[in-house]
């Protein structure tokens, strides 16, 4: 039925991978109940940790489109996160918009700013682009610290942001946010998985592999890079809405350069372009340190050392991206094999094909 590449399952091999993923997702859905039955006192704390992990997963997945798929070194992602959060805070506190109504505007605002700032720099290569994006995150942070247009409340930040509500039900407790955030993670994974395995995603892949060849094959490389940048930024803006309504208070120090570095680290550590990798990366970078609170600041040192070791021995990331899987439709599949069957060379058609490669 579906001729498209790799349907649905992000896990390993075939049907078992799908089952395993299903069981995992189901277990995750019951996690709040499990945590509460284990310990009523510490459950809210751990749920808060999981919510932070979830939020950073959304952010890192959006950065993954830019950094992982399109291969653009972008270290200023917190800027777009900030624009989304502030758009929500301003519309909610000053204009009385409901949180969910501000979400599309937050995404749009972040996307728009991204389009404007990326336009002149999108052609820059690797390291040059990196420096400019660091500039962007600093400019945004300084602008909101200086109470730009009298809207952002300066270094005190903004407070009194409402909670999101759906059909009269308001999200207040950590377990409410748990479902809100992780359902958004699920939606993000699904949409970006589809995006990755489409004409759009392939175009980004070609650009990442060889920009000159991609352009010569008819891919408008500038346009696709810009679109990847804008979609990633818009999604970070959307995450900003969730962040603002969860914290109720936001201030410039939540959107510093080091936040951008953290997101960058999650994507590189997990595996550029790999959603599973980004998910794992978020847990390791945002979740794991919580287990070692007893060690105080030493945990950061250990974490830093672990990163160095990782980059030496596994530079492609913990769970690197796998090649896309394609299914041949109908008769073609009978002739050349429809399913991807491991690394074995495909059966050759009688006689006319070239010999297998040694």
């Amino acid at each position: 039925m579906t001729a498209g590449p790799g349907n649905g399952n992000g896990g390993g091999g075939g049907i078992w991978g799908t089952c395993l993923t299903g069981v995992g997702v189901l277990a995750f859905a019951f996690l709040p109940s499990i945590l509460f039955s284990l310990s009523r006192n510490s459950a809210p704390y751990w749920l808060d940790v999981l919510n932070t992990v979830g939020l950073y997963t959304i952010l890192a997945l959006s950065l993954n489109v830019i950094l992982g798929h399109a291969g653009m070194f972008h270290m200023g992602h917190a800027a777009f996160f900030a624009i989304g959060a502030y758009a929500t805070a301003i519309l909610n506190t000053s204009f009385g918009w409901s949180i969910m109504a501000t979400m599309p505007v937050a995404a749009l605002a972040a996307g728009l700013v991204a389009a404007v700032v990326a336009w002149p720099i999108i052609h820059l290569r690797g390291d040059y682009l990196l420096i400019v994006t660091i500039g962007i995150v600093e400019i945004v942070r300084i602008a909101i610290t200086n109470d730009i247009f009298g809207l952002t409340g300066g270094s005190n930040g903004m407070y009194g942001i409402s909670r999101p509500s759906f059909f009269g039900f308001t999200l207040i407790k950590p377990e409410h946010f748990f479902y809100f955030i992780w359902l958004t993670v699920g939606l993000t994974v699904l949409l970006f998985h589809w995006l990755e395995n489409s004409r759009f995603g392939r175009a980004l892949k070609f650009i990442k592999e060889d920009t000159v060849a991609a352009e010569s094959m008819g891919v408008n490389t500038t346009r696709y890079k810009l679109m990847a940048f804008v979609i990633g930024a818009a999604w970070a803006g959307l995450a900003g809405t969730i962040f603002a309504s969860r914290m109720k208070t936001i201030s410039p120090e939540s959107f510093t350069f080091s936040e951008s570095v953290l997101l960058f680290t999650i994507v590189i550590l997990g595996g550029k372009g790999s959603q599973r990798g980004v998910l794992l990366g978020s847990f390791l970078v945002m979740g794991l340190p919580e287990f070692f609170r007893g060690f105080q600041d030493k945990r950061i040192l250990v974490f830093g050392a672990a990163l160095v070791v990782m980059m030496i021995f596994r530079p492609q990331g913990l769970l690197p991206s796998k090649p896309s899987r394609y299914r041949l439709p109908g008769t073609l599949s009978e002739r050349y094999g429809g399913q991807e069957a491991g690394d074995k060379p495909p059966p050759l058609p009688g006689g006319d094909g070239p010999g297998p490669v040694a």
Partner: protein
Amino acid sequence: MRILSLNNVTKTFGGLVAVAGVSCGVDRGAVVGLIGPNGAGKTTVFNMITGSTRPDDGHIFFAGHSIRGLRPHRIVALGIARTFQTIRLFPGLSVLENVLSGCHCRMRSGLVSSLLRLPGQRREERLVIERAMAELEFVGLAGLWRSTAGSLAYGDQRRLEIARALATEPRLLILDEPAGGMNEQETQELAALVGSIRDRDVTIMLIEHDMGFVMPVCDQLLVMENGILIAQGTPQEIQNNPKVVEAYLGLDEDA
């Protein structure tokens, strides 16, 4: 009918005049060979036709459009596809995906339909995979569709590059040293392939040093030396042209 014409096309790199006022035309349906010693400016001419190098002066017309200064992806969309002198596949991607890169410019699905996997997008994906497989069958690589492009044998990589270029549905195909590095048998197969591409009503321009390949395959030859077009004509005319013999054929090129 002329499908491509170059009018006084010039390109200098710093102080070096790579191409000096080249004017020529290519007839639709022809196989045209561009020959000349190394450094004669042949690849620069190809780069200017395909848009990767911008001419300093002159005009290039393709099928009624002025294409001078257009970006490569626009020129591909108009119907000129190319292969590279040094193979430039996407080595980490599968054979099928490489060909799909050529299909890109004939597809419509945009950001929204991809993000939401709309029915039209899925239908297009299915069609385009069939289309890509048809090109792979055409060059004889269909059985290797899921191999990694970088793992293919050299001759197969060359053919994959041609399949990828054909997937853009070109009216003019530009091959930069397609037989480079091929053995005798592979070169023979390539000559046959060029013939069947021409049968699909695709005009072909190629650079090649292997005269055993060029002479029987091409209808028309253009000869360049030091950035200047020194002769043009049928292979027989060129073989008997004293200027060419002196500049090129009589000269042991690597000696």
